[in-house]
């Protein structure tokens, strides 16, 4: 816990492993939100849902 974290260094990009993991998790969560069906998403005749 008290040891410094590792960093990834690609060109001008320098990012720590924890920050990289958080961003990767956010991208995964965003992708899941796009593809996962939303419950009760069926529309009425007027195109609105209850």
């Amino acid at each position, binding site marked *: 816990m008290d040891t410094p974290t590792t960093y990834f260094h690609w060109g001008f990009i320098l990012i720590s492993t924890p920050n990289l993991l958080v961003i990767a998790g956010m991208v995964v969560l*965003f992708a899941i939100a796009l593809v996962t069906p939303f419950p009760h998403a069926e529309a009425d005749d007027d195109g609105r849902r209850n």
Partner: protein
Amino acid sequence: MAVATSVEGAGSSQPESASWTLKLREAIDRHLPMDHLLPDRQPYYVGSWVYVFGVVTIAALVWVVVSGVVLTFMGPQWWHVSGVGRFFNSLHFWSVQLFFIFMVLHLWGQYFMAGWRHGRAATWMIGVVIFGVSVLTAFTGYLSQQNFDAQFIAINAKDAMNGAGIGAFFNVLNFGQMYGLHVMLLPIGVTALVVAHIVMVRTRGVVKPIDAEGGAQS
């Protein structure tokens, strides 16, 4: 507010047209009817998890404010030493992490659906300002921890503030200024802007998907 002085005016149910309260009430009725403010139905395209990100951000903000109020009342001796205090300290920290994560996810969602279309530019720009003020609030929060980490951040940040030319107005070594900004001015700013953001979203409704209107139009 105009005052009816005549006998006829005193008995009339029609207020005078010069009344600013009447104009304000009519403007609210016109622009923000209750079925827009608290709708029970949404367009079909709102049936997606992407629209949940903004709501989760608001939920996280509620927890940030609630835990922050408790921390403000109890003070640093409590949040550093006692078990319950450390729990609320962690609750404040982690709800802020969730607030920022879901605010950025909400930002991504609105960016890819071009949420500024059809007269929603002000809503988008207020969101941008909320993001900036939130970063400033989080920064002053790191300076308000009352520990060595806060001192380390303040000592290192002062050069950046001086380099930007704002060190005289925003002195990160002045704990009272940073703490006052963090617990009063900036939270009020974030909350007021979030309320304005939500009211504007409710006024115009959710932006239509680009596909639903046959291509991206401004």
